[in-house]
């Protein structure tokens, strides 16, 4: 080989060898001298030396070496402490990063030698160079958390940040069996304010309405239970303009869902950037508990009170039904504050009905609300919260209570009376609200006949007032809680205006004075007595349902004022109606007939006013009288003593006389000593009792229930035979009204029931049942008492729970179909399941809604929504008659029958 070639090769060899050598030296120096972490340790040592110099102590020097926290239980090795040297050294508080002390006292609870650093701060613990150590290179899924974002990592061990149900993780259940507690909703790791804000945002914006968490919540969106465990690979960043991290995606998504995920169902919640960031941080904090049990602190004792209904509503319902409960229809562009906001073309199933609607709540009973919440509405966006949604029965009850709370309370009832109302105003109210169901003439339709004289004679003002304000649950009678007190008085006054003008007591008295009894008048009186009074007072006045009229004690003491008032005004809330259709002559004749029984004997008593100790009297009354007359003198076996008209006309002298000597021939015995009565009272004691009775004159009305009178089992038989055909075997109604209705039974006294059964209701199909009145059935007083007892029993033992079964029997289904297609199909769809209005042909809806609900809704509509009133008086599209509405309801029920 040529010399120069060899030289060239030698040169090449030497040069490349030197190059190798230099590179090795370079690598060695770089690793052993120039590493950034070594420089940091030198700086740290210098800093400590300076501090020691200032303090006058000797610094502790450590050799420069790699430091780490080796944590096999966590599967981590954290070398952060090779650079972050001063985290647990208070002397380093003034140094710059990375040498400075860790802020706060978190390290006292989380010592680095047990926890390391990366379990909270993330980043790549095994790395020793930046940016790898901070996890900011693209291949590390856990980038470093800075600032308050560190709190999102608490969820790896702590339960406080979770929404609820942390114990479920501990005990391995999929769905927490306990109710959501108030403490869980407000808890957060101390110091994590952004997490707390985010949690509150979740509750207020109702995320759980679509997104399930720990098995509870809606089903339209993805589950969020451990959404914080997702990495950047689980998200599509095509439309995200900010940082490409999980936090960035979420923040952009919450600010404007549509722009990040085109075509999403998620509505724009109007969150600001800060709120979006807090919410995103909260979402990221929802992590699986990935540390061993020894690292997980026991969940502290939190407020174990169950979450209140309003929080439950906000969490689960408000995203669809609105935080204000007004629903989504009202939120279209027609009502939006921002006129530039286009109406989003929402899928049909997301148009949610308004809940905070007076008409809805007036007609929807608690049973209806509960049923719909429990079972949802299939094929719509309303989930079945009892099964799929994961709410417990108690929570659903609390939700119903919250919804009910949106209903107006109703006026104060004390001031309502017919005499205070103006019938002209009442007529206007009646024409606008009541006419659709009760008819222009008050003779009824969907609703009962109000104009029936016997009804108005027996129904007291209080009965009418309660019926109007409370409504009848699960029937078509809404609860008109939005009326003011004087409006109710006006209505009652108008109803009373249908009653004939009663004969004035003064006129009757004058007539009695002027014209003595003649055989003709006595005959008239007897006819009248036989026709009207004999059913309750007995053929010869000996008493049956009503008290005996024939006793001498009674007739000799009761003056004409007493008798006239009792006849003309009746005893409100007892079975004694107000016989105000009698003319003056008739009333006088009747009184004369009565007087003929004791041959017009009359005794005058000294005037006397009882003014002794009423409290003593109460005790005496309770001991001696209440057995027959009721604890509050509301009546029982004996007549109602705490009755306004009775006490208005019975003087204290009469009372004292009757108590002392009783009424011979009746169970009322004399109570004065020596009268061989049950008890022996002194005159002073009798004075006390009379004072007590007088004291009852001002007390408010109580509904009389007379326990112990009538046998329930017999009443059941009689009812089944005579009443069930129209009123339903369980009192759920049919042609006749619903008798087992709780509001009805609460406000109808036994006397009301007895009188109605006896006298029937003129002008309706309710015929008189009393003997001798040419009714369908002739019931004697005993039968009637039994039936009343049976009806009363329903108040204590309701015959069915929840929604009663059907009652409307429409006459013409074809008419119903034609009407439906004409009036309803435009919004609700030809088959009731299309269109933009709520789905009617929906199994859960039809199951939960009673016929009354449907009738009332059609008749009244829902103010504030697109559902107009279709009955008369509502100013709606077309005034349908009650019959037509019944036909439509019947047609709708046909859908239910078909699906069954």
């Amino acid at each position, binding site marked *: *080989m040529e010399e120069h070639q060899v030289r060239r090769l030698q040169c090449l060899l030497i040069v490349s060898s030197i190059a190798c050598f230099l590179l090795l030296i370079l690598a060695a120096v770089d690793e052993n001298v120039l590493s950034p972490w070594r420089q940091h340790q030198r700086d740290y040592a210098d800093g400590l030396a300076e501090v020691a110099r200032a303090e006058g102590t000797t610094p502790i020097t450590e050799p420069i070496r790699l430091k780490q926290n080796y944590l096999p239980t966590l599967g981590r090795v954290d070398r952060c402490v090779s650079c972050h040297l001063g985290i647990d050294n208070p002397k380093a508080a003034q140094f710059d990063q990375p040498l400075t002390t860790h802020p706060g006292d978190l390290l006292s609870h989380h010592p680095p030698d047990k926890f390391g650093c990366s379990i909270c701060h993330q980043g790549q613990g095994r790395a020793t160079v930046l940016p790898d150590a901070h996890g900011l290179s693209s*291949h590390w899924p856990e980038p470093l958390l800075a600032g308050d974002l560190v709190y999102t990592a608490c969820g790896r061990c702590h339960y406080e940040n979770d929404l609820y149900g942390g114990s479920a993780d501990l005990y391995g259940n999929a769905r927490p069996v306990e109710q959501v507690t108030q403490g869980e909703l407000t808890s957060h790791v101390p110091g994590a304010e952004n997490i707390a804000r985010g949690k509150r945002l979740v509750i207020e914006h109702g995320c759980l309405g679509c997104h399930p968490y720990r098995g509870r919540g809606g089903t339209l969106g993805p589950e969020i239970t451990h959404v914080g465990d997702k990495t950047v690979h689980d998200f599509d960043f095509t439309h995200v303009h900010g940082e490409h991290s999980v936090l960035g995606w979420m923040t952009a998504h919450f600010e404007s869902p549509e722009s990040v995920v085109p075509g999403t169902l998620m509505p724009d919640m109007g969150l600001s950037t800060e709120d979006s960031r807090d919410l995103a941080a909260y979402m990221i904090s929802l992590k699986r508990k990935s540390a061993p049990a020894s690292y997980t602190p026991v969940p502290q004792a939190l407020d174990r009170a169950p979450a209140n209904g309003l929080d439950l509503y906000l969490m689960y319902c408000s995203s669809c039904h609105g935080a204000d409960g007004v629903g989504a229809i009202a939120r279209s562009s027609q009502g939006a504050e921002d006129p530039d906001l286009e109406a989003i073309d929402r899928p049909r199933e997301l148009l949610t009905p308004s809940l905070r609607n007076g008409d809805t709540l007036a007609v929807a009973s608690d049973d209806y609300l509960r049923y719909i919440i429990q079972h949802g509405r299939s094929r719509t966006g309303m989930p079945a919260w009892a099964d799929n949604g994961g709410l417990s029965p108690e929570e659903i009850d609390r939700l119903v209570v919250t919804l009910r709370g949106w209903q107006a309370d109703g006026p104060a009832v004390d001031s309502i009376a017919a005499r205070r109302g103006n019938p002209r105003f009442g007529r206007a109210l009646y024409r606008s609200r009541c006419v659709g169901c009760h008819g222009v003439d008050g003779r009824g339709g969907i609703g009962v006949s109000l104009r029936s004289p016997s009804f108005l004679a027996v129904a007291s003002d209080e009965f009418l007032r309660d019926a109007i304000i409370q409504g009848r649950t699960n029937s078509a009678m809404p609860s008109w809680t939005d009326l003011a007190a004087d409006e109710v008085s006006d209505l009652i006054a108008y109803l009373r205006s249908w009653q004939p003008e009663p004969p004035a007591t003064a006129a009757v008295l004058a007539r009695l004075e002027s014209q003595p009894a003649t055989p003709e008048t006595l005959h008239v009186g007897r006819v009248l007595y036989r026709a009207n009074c004999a059913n309750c007072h007995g053929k010869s006045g000996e008493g049956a349902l009503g008290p005996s009229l024939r006793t001498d004690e009674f007739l000799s003491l009761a003056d004409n004022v007493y008798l006239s008032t009792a006849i003309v005004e009746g005893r409100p809330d007892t079975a004694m109606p107000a016989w105000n259709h009698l003319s003056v002559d008739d009333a006088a004749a009747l009184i004369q007939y009565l007087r003929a029984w004791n041959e017009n004997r009359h005794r005058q008593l000294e005037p006397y006013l009882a003014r002794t100790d009423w409290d003593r009297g109460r005790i005496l009354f309770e001991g001696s009288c209440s057995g027959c007359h009721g604890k509050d003198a509301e009546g029982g076996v004996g007549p109602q003593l705490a009755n306004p008209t009775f006490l208005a006309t019975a003087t204290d002298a009469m009372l004292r006389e009757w108590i002392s000597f009783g009424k011979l021939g009746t169970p009322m015995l004399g109570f004065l000593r020596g009268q061989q009565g049950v008890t022996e009272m002194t005159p002073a004691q009798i004075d006390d009792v009379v004072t007590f009775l007088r004291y009852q004159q001002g007390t408010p009305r109580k509904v009389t229930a007379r326990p112990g009178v009538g046998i329930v089992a017999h009443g059941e038989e009689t009812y089944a035979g005579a009443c069930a055909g129209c009123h339903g075997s369980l009192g759920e109604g049919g042609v006749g009204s619903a008798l087992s209705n709780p509001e009805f039974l609460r406000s109808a006294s036994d006397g009301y029931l007895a009188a109605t059964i006896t006298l029937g209701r003129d002008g309706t199909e309710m015929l008189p049942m009393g003997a001798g009145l040419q009714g369908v059935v002739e019931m004697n007083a005993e039968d009637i008492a039994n039936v009343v007892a049976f009806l009363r029993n329903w108040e204590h033992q309701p015959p069915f729970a929840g929604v009663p079964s059907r009652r409307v029997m429409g006459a013409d289904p074809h008419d119903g179909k034609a009407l439906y297609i004409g009036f309803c199909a435009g919004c609700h769809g030809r088959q009731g399941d299309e269109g933009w209005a709520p789905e009617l042909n929906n199994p859960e809806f039809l199951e939960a809604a009673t016929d009354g609900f449907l009738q009332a809704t059609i008749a009244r509509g829902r103010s504030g929504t697109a559902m107009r009133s279709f009955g008369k008086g509502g100013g709606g599209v077309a005034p349908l008659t009650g019959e037509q509405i019944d036909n439509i309801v019947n047609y709708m029920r046909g859908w239910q029958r078909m699906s069954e």
Partner: protein
Amino acid sequence: MPEQTIEMAHDERESSAGVTRRFAENVWNLPRTFRESAIRHGRPTSDRAASQAIFTNFFLHILPARIHRYSLQLKATLGLGVISLVLFGLLTFTGVTLMIYYKPSTIGAYDSMKDIQYVVPTGRLMRNIHRWSAHAMVACVVLHMARVFFTGAYSKPRELNWVVGIVLLVLTLALSFTGYLLPWDQLAFWAVTIGSAIAESPKEVTDAVGITSWFDIGGMTKHLLLGANHVGQEALIRFYLLHVIVLPLVTTVLIGLHFWRIRKDGGLTRPRSEDALPDDTATAPEAAPSKTYGLMAVVPGKTPAVDRALANTIPTWPNALYAIGALSMLTLAAMLLLGYFFDAPLAELANPAVPENPAKAPWYFLGLQEMVSYSAFMGGIGIPTLIVIGLCLVPYVDRERAGIGGWFGTGGGKSVCLLSGLFTLIVTVGLLAFTVNYGWLRNAYPDIQQWIITLVNPGTVLLVVLTLWSAAVTWTTNSTRLGALALFSCLLVGFVILTYFATVHRGPNWDFYWWPSQWPTH
């Protein structure tokens, strides 16, 4: 030295008092005697001594005592074989150091890689060198194969060495592939998943023939590779075993065979013109110091040549050693440079639940992966097998000896190669463009049988076209050598184009993209 020993024996018998002095002398002479026992002959000063230095050395005697001067020229071999060997050595050394810390368990592998990267002294450097040397070695052995082919160094008597070389190529690829899994990151996991799916691809054929139920060669192969139905701990251990013991051992033995055959086949190939007897003589021979009969040199002719050097050869010591040394240190310097400045990639921890999309094989397999996308069996097994077998058969099919030793031979070899390259470029790009725009048979006939696709797909079409081209060249030029040159050039260019295409223009779901920046961000 025997004389000294005999003298020493006399002394012993003479005086026992001098034993202490003798002992001290021996200890004092220890460095010299030790050096002399190890280095017997000292620096060579003559050609004969130079031969002796090579010949009697355990490590060096794989080299010939004298080497042809042509062989040391860069243009002869480009030094690629030496570089490949040096890289292999470097890989072995860095590999063993990595083995100190690497843990072949699915739980520990990734973390041990991180520790090597950040904490182990020189860990980063060792790992990077290992990675870049692996890539370089694959490239170098391919280039070495190309050099051998283009210089016709496969012809008789070197056919077997060519076959051994092909086997070594396959082994190199296997070593690279088995090592690819060991970091246990997403890149590794999914690349091996795809590889195992390719191993299972004979199922395509057995399904078509209907014999899968009793002879599922595809499934068996995959199970053999993975030790399970999925890529997991078993696969990791098997690949580790292959990578650190089995394949290196086999490779070492075959490298030994490869060198042995070079020696026995008469050294590195050189053009006939280089073998002509020159009129010069190199150096004058020296008298042998004693009567030995070691074989020092061979000269052409029938009688032993005395006082005459081998024509055109030069002593290996020191010339070849300088050449080899320089090449080695250059290679080492290059790898050190790469290793210091560029970190080997390490993606996220392997996650069977999150597939990479696209999951790409290492670069040297990407051309194959492109063909696998047309037909798993053909692209993964069929075509590579055909190519390997074809390459092995070349020396037996092309027996022409004209122009051996020089590049491209004589008689238009260079132009044939260039033309073939151009032809391949046009055909490959055209075929790819067609497939990207119009799809293939299944787009037009959705119900077409799979075996038709297996037989007729862009990969097989390309192979057939290129084969036909080389057949045409053979026939028109009347030369198997030119035909072979044409075929090899076609395959080389095709390989490069397909590799480039699959690297740059294939994105998620193996869809066509002009640039990676257009991939949809996930």
